[in-house]
């Protein structure tokens, strides 16, 4: 059974690229484009892993991460933060809020896939 991955980003072109990339790797992919939709889809779709952008309308990635980590039913969910804000304090904040990894944009597609596979192994 393929792992389910939820992509959360408000930048359409990035979403297109991620969706294509991960589908080609054989994952079951769904997309959300803002914080609220991300939470909704997380409950509905029950993803194994979430690629989470930080700067989004309605709820920021940090807020989404915090809420999910407070939810016991989501304990197994792996979260990779994906953001163009690469400052040290933001990396630390993301990891402190419970993200499993923090990847800075622009990223290498190979590395991203490798990271996802490691986390899901």
């Amino acid at each position, binding site marked *: 059974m393929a792992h389910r991955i939820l992509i959360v980003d*408000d*930048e*359409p*072109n*990035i979403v*297109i*690229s*991620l969706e*294509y*990339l991960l589908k*080609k790797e054989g994952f079951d992919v769904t997309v959300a*484009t*803002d914080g609220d939709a991300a939470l909704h889809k997380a409950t509905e779709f029950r993803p194994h892993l979430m690629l989470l952008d930080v*700067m989004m*309308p*309605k709820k920021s990635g940090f807020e989404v991460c915090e809420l999910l980590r407070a939810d016991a039913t989501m304990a197994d969910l792996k979260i990779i933060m994906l953001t*163009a*804000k*690469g*400052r040290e304090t933001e990396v630390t904040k993301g990891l402190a809020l419970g993200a499993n990894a923090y990847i*800075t*944009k*622009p*990223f*290498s*597609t*190979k590395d991203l896939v490798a990271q996802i596979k490691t986390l899901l192994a």
Partner: protein
Amino acid sequence: MLQGWVVVLASFLYLGVLFAIAWYADRRADLGRSLIANPAVYALSLGVYCTTWTFYGSVGRAAASGIGFLPIYLGPTLLFALAGFILFKMIRVAKVNRITSIADFVASRYGKSQLLGGLVTVIAVVGVIPYIALQLKAVSNSFSILSSYPEIIMPAAAGAVPILQDSALYVAMILAAFTILFGTRHLDATERHEGMVAAIAVESLVKLGAFLAVGVFVVWGLHDGVADIFARAAAMPDVARRLASADTPAAYGTWGTLIFLSMFASLLLPRQFQIAVVENVDESHLRRAVWMFPLYLFLINIFVLPVALAGLLHFKAGGVDADTFVLTLPMAHQQEALALFVFIGGLSAATGMVIVETIALSTMVCNDLVMPLLLRMPWLGLAAKADLSGLLLEIRRWAIAIILGLGYLYFRVAGEAYALVSIGLISFAAVAQFAPVVIGGLFWKGGTRDGALAGLAAGFVLWAYTLLLPSFAKSGWLPDGFIAHGLFGVELLRPQHLFGLTGLDEITHCLVWSLLANLGFYIGISIQRVPNVREARQATLFVGGNEAAGHSGWSASAGVADLLPLASRFLGRERAEEAFLRHARQRGLNSVKELPADTRLVNFAENLLTGAIGSASARAMVASVVSEEPLGIDEVMNILDEASQVRAYSRELEQKSRELTRATAELRDANERLRELDRMKDDFISTVTHELRTPLTSIRAFSEMLHEDPKTDLEQRTKFLGIIVSETVRLSRLINQILDLAKLESGRAEWTVTAIDVDEVIHEAADSLTVLFAEKRVTLDLAGLQTGLTVMADRDRLMQVMVNLLSNALKFVPTDSGRVRVGADGTANEVRVSVSDNGPGIAAADQELIFDKFRQGSGGTDVLTDKPQGTGLGLPISRQIIEYFNGRLWVESSPGAGARFLFTLPRQAGDNGKNS
């Protein structure tokens, strides 16, 4: 063999030897090979502290009260061992200021006051005379006891002998002659007497030797060591009782008082000041003296108790005064040679004290009392007299004779009423009055002349009333009614129970009242006013040590022609010329005539004279040459000038300090602003980075995927490449806009200002966007444009604003049903352009935010689900442009009812709108 003539001959021989030593030391000093430049000699000469009071009196006091004689020596021991720094500072200050006596020291410290110098001199003379009387009494008594050998007969009472048969009179006369020979042979510029110091050091050795000889004889000749004497004494209850000092609070108080008194006496007695400070050759000698002098005191006291006890044991029957035990014990055992040696030892103690004391006092009397008075009597014609050095010597000689005469008089009047020790203590209490002004003057800058005068006068009056007058009364010279009943019968004024204070011995009682008044007035009056310029200068010199040497305040100048004759009058022509020549050589000149008439020369002359006639008189004399009056208008102006300079300087300082405070506050504000700007710059860069990375992310992701998988199908490939191209365009636009904004913000943008037809520019902008409007099927309505509106602005920039506003509107209106209307009208002052759309509108909270960099509509509201295209820099750039031409750009909108962007431009442009 001990007939009178033998004793007299031995005495004269001894004095002759002393004189020879002094003469030899003086010659050596003239040749520049000083005999006394040696710490041991300095320490021995300090032994002048031990007079006949010690030599005979210690044993007397020990016989009466056991170890009661000790505090007189503990005081100086403590002072030298623990407070040598005070003495060190006194020596240093005295050398720098060429101090010649304790009166000069005090006068100089408080602004070179002649009045103060005079007062100190009077106190010193009056206070020390009983002490001199004591020496006369001791020498004359010991002489008469010795001449009656082999019998031991106590001398008759002082006043009972007819004056011409009184040996004390002859002792006084001989001592006066001897002192005059010693001390006033020449006037020295530094007022030091090397010969005298050498003789005093020898005398210290002689008296110590004599006392130790008696001690050894008594302890090991008459008894089997110290233990034997003490054992025998303990066997006699009458004697044993004296070994235990009285165990009452008053007795402890007395001990404290005596230690305190002797501590000050060893510093402030005129002879101690003379030897320790004025005659000091090298201040480093003091380092050795701080232990050698206490050692001397220890040695000369070591046999006091054994001799006293042996005397008490031997003369059980009484009738022999314990003060004479040192002499009578050898006599009673037929030790003629030892007895003569003891007599010579006593003579040493007496002559040492009398010589130094009277020389010191005569210098004070001459410099601080007589000369100032004589110089104020113009009818004496002194100012015109060519050579006054002879007169100075004459005055000193007479002063010596008169002081010894007064000593003899006191001896006749009061000599029998008191034991040796009590007479000495009266003098100690008198010189203790100098302690506040001297020690205060060394460590406190606030003391003033008035305070010193008041303190000294009050202390002196109380001393005289509570101690000196009662000593006269007890000897019957004054009616003694006032002791018992108080002055004018007022009980509170009883001199030895003043204001009802009882329970203290008379010395402690006197000290409590006199020092209390002294200190109180000294401090109380001093703090009434700030020290004036002259006092403050001297205070700096004394308290700050020699490092703070200020100039002496002469602003006027005088030449060699005036100053050399002046110095010659007091020093003698030869000595003065020699000194001036030395000064000239120091300044690299060949002869006295080349010396310029400047303040340095005046200071030199004042210094030279200070050594001879004291600081206060020297100042007055130099003033008489420099200007006609001692306190001329020049000097007053000079003092005022200095004072006002000091005040101006302090005002300037205050102002500087205020300016500094203000500058600090400004700097802090500026720093705060910089910090804020820095934070804003950080945020901006972080945002720019984010905006640049977002398109890069898509570009890299698609490029990598296409690169990885060359077999991607064509449709996908075309789509991906399209995205890459559009993201690249986005990236370029972003970079251009950032650079554009930076240019605008930093004021480096170039502007081409011309008269512009607004209607024309709007049409041109609309034309450039026709295709885009058509693609989205949005209506562009330009019907509301008024024609003929002209403003002064940059045409391209205005186009940029219009294109931006139009494409913004296009972005937010719905496809097909979208509608954008442009209007333009004008008032007398300005042109107004509006762009309205039927898009989702902007929430009130966001209407200002959209003009911030990188803020786009949609932020926190849900009017937009899709992220709009654009960089978020268009509106900020447009606003910069409009504001550059003194216009305004804003938005009016209510959510759901579309948005309306407006800007105005003034018809009469400001400076920026001028054609450049």
